[in-house]
């Protein structure tokens, strides 16, 4: 339970963090909230020679709404997101996802940037980031990149981040008009991680038909994914309990589900269908 030796440096600005990363290369890892990395270091699943602590970069801890998009700094903690009025208004399912993470202590330390960079297949945020077509903004030696969430999460614990790149911000387009979103999760009791988590966002037109719909599902597969079949079946339709039920049959179509001691693959696929329906029902109700 004792980590390997390492050298510890503190980055005092985003620019300094980028140059430290460049200096140390793959010998170094960034340390944000430490709530994925420190446990891994204690188990010696990760043994970086150098830790670059970006946890004190308050310039990267913010939430704001600008030009129809939420901008969330990478170092914003789960607690700040959960309790942010701006997030609650603009992207309720993200606030709900943040509130579902671990426990008070974990939410006080863990950050959204660390969570997306870590890309745990059972993490909560990816479902919402996919459903809202969020963008992950990174900074590296070659400048800034904006990466769509659908391109960012590549596989289990693997992202599109290149060596030397830092996640600096998450951007989420805000839906206006009659729009509602919700995140619902079936958690593994002991760890709190998602066995299945579904984020749904629904826009209704003047006649009450579904003009836009997106479903993001986490915890079920190697990485979070969109319930594309469900979305297609709902677009342009008047929402009804029967329609939602039948559309959600396709929520995880074609997905190879994880299978472990916490839940079998079949059980996870069942949860995906049921939680997709419940999250959609809630989103429709909130779209009002």
């Amino acid at each position, binding site marked *: 339970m004792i980590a390997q*030796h*390492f050298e510890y440096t503190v980055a005092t600005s985003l620019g300094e963090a980028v140059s430290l990363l460049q200096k140390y290369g793959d010998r170094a890892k960034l340390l944000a909230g430490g709530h994925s990395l420190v*446990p891994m270091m*204690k188990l010696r699943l990760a*043994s970086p020679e150098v*830790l670059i602590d970006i946890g004190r970069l308050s310039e990267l801890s913010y939430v704001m709404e600008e030009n129809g998009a939420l901008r969330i700094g990478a170092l914003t903690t789960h607690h700040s997101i959960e309790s942010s009025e701006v997030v609650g208004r603009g992207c309720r399912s993200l606030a709900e996802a943040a509130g579902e993470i671990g*426990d008070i*202590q974990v939410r006080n330390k863990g950050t959204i940037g660390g969570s997306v960079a870590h890309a745990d297949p059972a993490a909560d945020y990816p479902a919402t980031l996919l459903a809202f077509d969020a963008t992950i903004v990174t900074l590296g030696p070659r400048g800034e990149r904006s990466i769509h969430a659908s391109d960012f999460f590549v596989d289990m614990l693997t992202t599109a981040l290149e060596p030397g790149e830092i996640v600096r911000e998450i951007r989420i387009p805000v839906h206006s008009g009659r729009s509602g979103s919700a995140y619902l999760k079936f958690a593994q009791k002991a760890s709190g991680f998602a066995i299945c988590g579904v984020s749904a966002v629904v826009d209704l037109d003047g006649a009450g038909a579904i003009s836009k719909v997106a479903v993001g599902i986490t915890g079920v597969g190697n990485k979070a994914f969109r319930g594309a079949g469900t979305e297609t079946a709902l677009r342009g339709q008047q929402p009804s309990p029967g329609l939602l039920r039948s559309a959600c049959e396709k929520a995880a179509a074609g997905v190879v589900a994880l299978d472990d001691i916490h839940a079998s693959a079949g059980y996870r696929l069942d949860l995906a269908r049921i939680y997709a329906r419940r999250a959609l029902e809630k989103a429709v109700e909130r779209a009002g």
Partner: protein
Amino acid sequence: MLPVSLQTSFPKGMLMTQRVRITINGKLFESDVEPRLLLTDFIRGVAGLTGTHVGCETSICGACTILANGLAVKSCTMFAVQADGSDLVTIEGMAKDGQLHPLQQSFWEEHGLQCGYCTTGMIMCAHQLLARNATPTEAEIRDGLTGNLCRCTGYQNIVKAVQSASGKMRQTQNVAAGD
């Protein structure tokens, strides 16, 4: 996949240390530590404050919960160097002038503990909960304490203790405010 590098650049016997300054319960502790020293071990081993317990050391049980700059955190999931310059409160900092904190008093009165191993972490987490929500419902208390495990009590009396402390703390606030 997992970035695994089990080599280290430091030859055995040549351990690098770093100076940290951490204030605990108003008192400054200064020490040269290895960066890999956990904050719990700094609190217990360097500062000698053994009220902060280690239950699991894997971020699950909450026994090691303390307040760092006002936030409840699991001190086994931080390196001491991360807390350099921070202001911590541990269970030893809760009683003032020989008077137990209302949470401590309530845990005692409501039999919120049996062996007491989880209690110090429970109290520090409950402190955070009440700071954010002075009048939590039973469900909110149970939800707020999900990061703290108790092997003895069955939680019933812990919930009662937090409810009772919430009442006591509101009363003192009202008295202070002159109601």
